[in-house]
């Protein structure tokens, strides 16, 4: 084990080796993935293609669109690892991504719907 340096401490979690879970891939490919992007398995996904156990689990969990962050929580994997798994599946045509809306200051209509919706809680 590497000697503990100052870059992690009590606020940080256990030391892991995430590339062991990503088939050796170290970063996501293609278009940026966001935590709240929705991931969905295409219907034929997983048939006769080589998958790591983690990728197979991702596919099993998103027959309907599931946000990336919920996949990470369900699989108990760091979000960075799930992004890599999902980007690889996307590149192979096994999942589709429905991108979240960048609300920011741009979409007044959605902002107003959020205000109204929260008030009703």
């Amino acid at each position, binding site marked *: 084990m590497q000697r503990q340096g100052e870059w992690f401490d009590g606020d940080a979690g256990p030391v892991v080796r995430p590339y062991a879970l990503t088939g050796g891939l170290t*970063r996501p490919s293609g278009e940026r993935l966001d935590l709240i992007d929705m991931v969905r398995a295409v219907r034929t996904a997983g048939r006769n293609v080589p998958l790591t156990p983690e990728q197979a689990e991702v596919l099993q969990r998103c027959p309907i669109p599931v946000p990336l962050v919920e996949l990470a929580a369900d699989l108990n994997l760091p979000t960075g690892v799930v992004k890599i798994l999902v980007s690889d599946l996307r590149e192979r045509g096994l999942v589709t991504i429905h991108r979240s809306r960048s609300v920011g*200051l741009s979409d007044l209509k959605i902002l107003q719907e*959020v205000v109204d919706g929260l008030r009703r809680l």
Partner: protein
Amino acid sequence: MAYGGYDHGSATAVTPVTVKILVAGGFGAGKTTLVGSVSEIRPLRTEETLSERSQLVDSLYGVEQKSTTTVAMDFGRITIRDDLVVYLFGTPGQRRFWFMWDDLSYGALGAVVLADERRLADCFPSIDYFERNNIPFVVAVNSFDDSQHHSLETITQALSLSGGVPVIRCDARRRTSSRDVLVALAEHAITRHHEAQFN
């Protein structure tokens, strides 16, 4: 309403529009409590990878490091309608976690900075971050029973907030109080939207 359909989806399934609200603040300020009190699901915890390299560059994905540690994030969900879902993310506000905020705040509606008035300085890094990155935010002073109850004006001055940033008191344990904080944030984002139109 023409929310984007799904490429391979059935005609009936609606893929919701998802929006993010961030919950920042120092250790023990009540981030997890606020997320939990207003979320429709028990707050879930996920982890973001943090590598040594991430400290030095704006890289989030440095899993090529031999050793990588993780930082916990709590998240919650509020379904406003079938086709509109708000996700809340609570995660540490210290400066060394800013690389995470770059990713988290991308496209976010805005942020809640939770302050504990006994340790106001703990929320300075979060405020710095959102000011620098022009992300709408409100400061919510989580009022614990034994806290000193400075006036909100005093707190606003102590935080040297630029004009217009709402500072409100809340009890993060109470759902309605947490909800009111989120409403204040969304309203503030609308105000900022209008200001942007005129500038």
